[in-house]
C-alpha cells in the first residue's frame, strides 16, 4: 500500500514536472518568436508620390544597427515632449506641436498628433519612431502679407526653421527631471486618448497605439533609453553654441567633427562658428560637376547628399539607400523653384537689368536657368572665388578645417564592397563630371546603382566661397552664405548702407526689394534678431565696382527686376 502510494506520488510529481516544463518551453518559445519579430521589425512609412516622399520619407536614420540603437524618437515621446515641457518651448504654448520652432505643419494636420514636414516615421524594434529627413532643412514658406495665405515651397531653404533652438529644446528636455516614465506615460495616455477622439483625416499609415507590452517596455526601459540617446547625441555636440544659429541657419561642419571624435576643447574660436544659411536644393543635375557647399569643398552631389544625410541620422550602417536615391532623383531635375509672381515684375526695366547682369554678374553666377552655362562660355559658375576677393564673413570658411577635409576621407569607408573594381573607380571619376547628354546620365546612373554609397573621396579645403547658380533666387533670402543681408536690393548697396539688425525667420515677402520683411513690429515679434556685429554674422563683402555696388540707383533697381525672373 505504502509502496504503491509512493509510486503514485512519484508519477504525479513527474507528470506535474512534465507539464510545468512543457508550459515553460512553449511560453519561452512564444516570447522568443515575439521578441524576434519585434526586434527585426523595420518598416518605413512610404509614399507613392515623390513630393510626399521628399516631405516625409525616411532616410533610415530612425533605425539602429547592432549596438547602435538608432536616432529615432518613439512617436509617442515625440508628441508628448512639447506637451510635457512647454516651459522649454520658445513660446511656452502647448497644443502647437513643434510650430514654435518654425516647423511646418501642412493645412489640415493637427500639430498635436501629426508630424511636421521634415519628420519621417519608421517602425523599428516594434516601435514607431520618428526622425529628421531632408525636407526639414529644405522646405520653406512665404506669404504675400501678414494676412496672406502661407505658401509652402519644397526644396527652398527652411527659412522659418530654427534647428538650433530645437536642439536646445531636445537637450533641455532630456536633462529635465520630468523626463521619466512616471511623468511621460500619463501624458502619453492622455494624448493617445485625445488622439483617438480627434477627427483626424485618413492617412496611409498611423502610428499604432501603445499596447500593454509597449507600456511596460516604455515604463522600464524605453523612456530612460531615449533620454540616454538624446543626452549622448547632444553631449557630443556640446561645444556648439546652438543659440547662435537662428532660423534658416545651421552650423554645417561642426557636427561632423563630433562624429569623427575631434578634440574640441582646445579648438581655435574661429573654427567654431560656421553658421550658414540652409541652401536650396533644386536642379541638382545642373550642379553635377560644380563645387558644392558654400565654400565649394566637394564636387560630388552624391557625397554632399550622404554628408547632409548624417544630419537625418543616416549612417553608413543604417542608411536606406533606395529611399535616399529616390529623393536625390527627385531633386535631380523634377524639383523646380516656383516663378516670381509675374504681376510684380516691372517688365519695362527687365531689359536694362538683363544687360547689367550680363556685364557684371553672369561670369560668376551663370545664366538664369539650368544648366546655368553653355559649353565654352568660360563661366565661373560653381567655381570658388578667393576670400580675399569676395571678402564676405570668413567664419564659415574657417570652420571647415584642413583636418576635417582629410578625416572625412574615412567616412563611408568599406563601401562599396568592390571599391577597386573598374566600374567603381569609374563611378568615383564620373561623379564630379558635368552632365552633357542623356547618355552621360544613363552611364552615371548605371555606375551609381553598382557603387553607391561610396567612401568620401572629394572633400577638399578651399580658400573662398563658391559662385552659386541663382535658380529660385527670390526664395533664397536672406543673402550671402550667412544670411546677413536681407534683400537683393540691400546686397547691391555697399556694406555701410546695409542693415545691421534684421529679424529673420518671418515669412512675409517684400516683393519690391526681393527678400523677406526683416523689420517692423511683426517681424520683430515673430523673427529672430540677427546682429551683423556678432562674429560670423558680418554683412560685408561681395561689394565694389565689379560686384555692382557702385551702379546708379536706377541700374540697381533694374538689375533687381531682372533677378526676380530667376
Amino acid at each position, binding site marked *: 500500500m505504502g509502496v504503491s502510494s509512493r509510486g503514485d506520488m512519484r508519477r504525479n510529481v513527474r507528470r506535474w514536472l512534465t507539464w510545468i516544463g512543457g508550459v515553460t518551453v512553449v511560453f519561452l518559445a512564444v516570447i522568443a518568436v515575439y521578441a524576434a519579430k519585434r526586434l527585426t521589425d523595420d518598416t518605413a512609412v512610404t509614399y507613392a508620390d515623390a513630393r510626399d516622399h521628399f516631405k516625409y520619407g525616411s532616410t533610415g536614420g530612425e533605425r*539602429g*544597427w*547592432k*549596438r*547602435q540603437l538608432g536616432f529615432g524618437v518613439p512617436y509617442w515621446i515625440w508628441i508628448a515632449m512639447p506637451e510635457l515641457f512647454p516651459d522649454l518651448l520658445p513660446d511656452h504654448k502647448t497644443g502647437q506641436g513643434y510650430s514654435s520652432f518654425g516647423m511646418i505643419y501642412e493645412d489640415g494636420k493637427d500639430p498635436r498628433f501629426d508630424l511636421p514636414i521634415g519628420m519621417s516615421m519608421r517602425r523599428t524594434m516594434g516601435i514607431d519612431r520618428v526622425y529628421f529627413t531632408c525636407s526639414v532643412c529644405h522646405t520653406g514658406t512665404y506669404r504675400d502679407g501678414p494676412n496672406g495665405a502661407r505658401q509652402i515651397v519644397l526644396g527652398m531653404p527652411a527659412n522659418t526653421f530654427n534647428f538650433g533652438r530645437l536642439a536646445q529644446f531636445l537637450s533641455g528636455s532630456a536633462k529635465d527631471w520630468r523626463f521619466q516614465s512616471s511623468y511621460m506615460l500619463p501624458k502619453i495616455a492622455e494624448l493617445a486618448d485625445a488622439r483617438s477622439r480627434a477627427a483626424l483625416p485618413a492617412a496611409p499609415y498611423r502610428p499604432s497605439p501603445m499596447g500593454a507590452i509597449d507600456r511596460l517596455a516604455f515604463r522600464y526601459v524605453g523612456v530612460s533609453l531615449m533620454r540616454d540617446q538624446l543626452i549622448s547625441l547632444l553631449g557630443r555636440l556640446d561645444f556648439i553654441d546652438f543659440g547662435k544659429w537662428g532660423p534658416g541657419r545651421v552650423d554645417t561642419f561642426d557636427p561632423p*567633427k563630433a*562624429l*569623427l*571624435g*575631434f*578634440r*574640441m576643447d*582646445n*579648438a581655435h574660436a574661429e*573654427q567654431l562658428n560656421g553658421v550658414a544659411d540652409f541652401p536650396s536644393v533644386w536642379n541638382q543635375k545642373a550642379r553635377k560637376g560644380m563645387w558644392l557647399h558654400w565654400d565649394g569643398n566637394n564636387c560630388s552631389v552624391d557625397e554632399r547628399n550622404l554628408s547632409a544625410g548624417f544630419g537625418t541620422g543616416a*549612417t*553608413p*550602417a543604417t542608411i536606406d539607400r533606395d529611399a535616399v536615391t529616390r529623393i536625390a532623383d527627385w531633386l535631380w531635375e523634377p524639383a523646380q523653384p516656383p516663378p516670381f509672381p509675374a504681376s510684380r515684375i516691372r517688365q519695362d526695366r527687365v531689359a536694362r537689368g538683363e544687360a547689367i547682369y550680363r556685364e557684371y554678374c553672369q561670369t560668376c553666377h551663370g545664366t538664369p536657368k539650368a544648366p546655368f552655362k553653355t559649353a565654352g562660355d568660360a563661366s565661373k559658375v560653381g567655381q570658388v572665388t578667393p576670400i580675399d576677393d569676395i571678402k564676405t564673413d570668413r567664419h564659415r570658411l574657417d570652420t571647415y*578645417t*584642413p*583636418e*576635417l*577635409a*582629410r*578625416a572625412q*576621407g*574615412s*567616412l563611408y*569607408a*568599406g*563601401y562599396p564592397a568592390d571599391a*577597386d573594381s573598374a566600374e567603381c*573607380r569609374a563611378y568615383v571619376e564620373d561623379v564630379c563630371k558635368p552632365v552633357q547628354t542623356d547618355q552621360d546620365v544613363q552611364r552615371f546612373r548605371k555606375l551609381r546603382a553598382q557603387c553607391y554609397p561610396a*567612401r*568620401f*573621396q*572629394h*572633400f*577638399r*579645403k578651399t580658400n573662398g566661397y563658391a559662385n552659386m547658380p541663382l535658380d529660385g533666387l527670390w526664395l533664397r533670402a536672406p543673402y550671402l552664405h550667412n544670411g546677413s543681408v536681407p534683400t537683393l536690393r540691400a546686397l547691391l548697396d555697399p556694406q555701410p548702407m546695409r542693415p545691421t539688425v534684421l529679424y529673420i525667420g518671418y515669412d512675409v515677402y517684400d516683393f519690391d526689394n526681393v527678400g523677406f520683411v526683416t523689420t517692423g513690429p511683426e517681424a520683430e515679434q515673430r523673427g529672430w534678431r540677427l546682429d551683423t556685429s556678432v562674429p560670423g554674422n558680418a554683412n560685408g563683402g561681395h561689394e565694389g565696382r565689379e560686384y555692382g555696388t557702385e551702379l546708379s540707383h536706377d541700374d540697381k533697381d533694374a538689375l533687381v527686376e531682372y533677378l526676380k525672373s530667376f
Partner: protein
Amino acid sequence: MRARPIVAIVVSVVLVLVVLWLFWDKLYRQHPQPASITSDRDAAFLYGSIGNESDTGLPYWVAVVLPRVFGERYLPGPGGYAAVVPWEEGKELPIGFSKKRVGVDRVGFNCALCHMPDNSMRKTDIKALAAFFTNSASDARFNADTILTEIDLAYRLSVIDRVLYRGILIPASRDRLLALGRQLMSPHTAGGWARSTPATSR
C-alpha cells in the same frame, strides 16, 4: 555497422579542416593590395605595404574608429589622425598607413610615416602618434563593447567578422597598440628620438 567509426572520423576531420580553413582564411590569408597602389610608384611609397600588417597590423576597423573614440582625449588637437599625421585629401588613410587584407583588412605602417619625399606637408608628429596609441590602449574604455559600438556607427560587420573582432582582434589590438607605441618611439636605433625631436608644425 563497422563503417560508423570511419564516418565519425571523416566527419570530425572535415569539421576540423573547415574550422582550420576558416581560421586561415580570416586571420592569415594574404590578399594583395589593389593595383592602384602597387603599380603606382608614389602610391606604393605612401600607402604600400612593407609586409608588417600580420606582425604589427591593426585590424582596419580598430584603426579607423580609434581616433573617433579616443581622439577627443588623447590627440593634441581637433582633426583625428590629421591632427598629427600628413593626410592627402580624399584618401581613406593618412600617409604612411598601409591597408592590406591578411585574413581581415589590417593597417600597417611604412617608411613614409616618418620619411616624406618633400617638405610641403605637415610632418608626422611621431611622439604624439605614439602617445595616442599608448594612451588609447591603456584606457579603461578600450574594450570590445566600446570599439564595436563605434564600428556599428560606421560599418556593417559580417557575423563572422563581428565574432572575430569581439573575441580576438580587439583584445589583441591592445597589445599591438602598446607595442606600436614603443616601436614608434625607438626607430632604427634605440633612443633615436631622444636626441632629435621630430618637427611638429606644418
